[in-house]
């Protein structure tokens, strides 16, 4: 699980071009959206593609992402439970 979390942090930083942020800057329970890391709805769509591409999880409704992408913690948990690759 710890490994997956670091992997996710790295992926978020590269795929969303968060140039000035490093893995250490993101805590597992930080909010990814709004006040926390400041991600927005376009980033959520990027993350949905990442779930599909890297973990074989398909979301059909962008609203589903809201809970899943709350933090690295929630994302990692969801991926562990649902991944097909």
């Amino acid at each position, binding site marked *: 699980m710890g490994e997956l979390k670091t992997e996710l942090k790295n992926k978020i930083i590269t*795929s*969303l*071009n*968060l*140039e*000035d942020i490093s893995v250490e800057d993101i805590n597992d329970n930080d909010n990814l959206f709004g006040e926390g890391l*400041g991600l927005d709805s*376009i980033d959520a*769509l*990027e993350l949905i*593609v990442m779930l*599909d*591409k890297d973990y074989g999880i398909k979301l059909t409704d962008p609203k589903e992402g809201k809970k899943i992408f709350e933090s690295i913690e929630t994302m990692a948990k969801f991926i562990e439970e649902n991944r097909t690759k």
Partner: protein
Amino acid sequence: MENCYINGIGCISAQKSFEKDYLIEPIVYSEENILKVVKPNYKDYISPAAVRRMSSGVKNGIVASTMAINDAGIESPGAIITGTGMGCMQDSEKFLNNLINHDEEYLTPTSFIQSTHNTVGGQVALGLKCKAYNFTYVNTGVSFESALLDGLMQVENQDGQNVLVGGIDELADHTSKLYKLIKHTKSDDEAPYDIINKRTKGSISGEGAAFFVLDKEKTANSYCKLADVKFVNNLENSGLETFVNDFLASNDLIASDIDVILFGNNGDIEFDSYYDQLEPLFGEAAILYYKHLFGEFMTSSSIAVSLGSDILRSQSIPGALFKNEVSHPKGEIKNLLIYNQYRGKDHSLILLKNV
């Protein structure tokens, strides 16, 4: 017609145009057939959160518009009007690349969103929280001129509102390759390039962003008056001279009233003859060109307006711009004309006047 003044300018180009008097020591290009912009420090103008999704064209547009607004000393404009020939090519290429090479799988939205032609106009509005009129023109060689004309009309119609007008185009790698294939850009093996003395097929390609604040009111910072803009897709049988003379006449001028003319020469053997044709008409004017320093792109006349505005305000002409011999006008520089065409189409005239 109401007066329309140019009160603020911001320009990002293949020269250090974000600095004052940058043409005293211009960057001279002779080995390059593609001129990229000299990058400003983007972080001074755009927040890290916003910059992460922006292609260089969008960044240049944001910086140039911010510079123009600061230069004019205004808060937020009463209209935002942009022109771009090719639009956001870098993001279009990125999305196309993913689409083609990944066979429509795992596509992400960011480059698609950023590929829209009105990205810069929308982003400038978003940054300024400006809810005013917002248009984007995309008509090849007169994309910027269309924006400028709309700006002029907005100044005429709006009470006391200033207008932000700009032209933006960005280079993108694959598209640059394609334009070389069809010789719109000069071949790699022709260097050194000299667009006046060695005409061949195609032009030196470039990119840039130039923004202007137009206003009904003259200020201490006013560069010049934007007197008129006119453009046509094709010259009719009556020809170029009639087009120019009619334009001058409608502004109560004749050819000999023009003190400085800025031509769009780009060294293309197929189309530079248009400028040759006009030269004798302006025998008394200082004849200038600029694309050897800035490259050719669909909104390059925005650079010409920036240069013309600087010339009128400073009443001096940088030596690097003279096409033939250096011959400064004797008296005051009052009327400055810009003539441009793009591959034989989209002929445009812009008239600037001293204030």
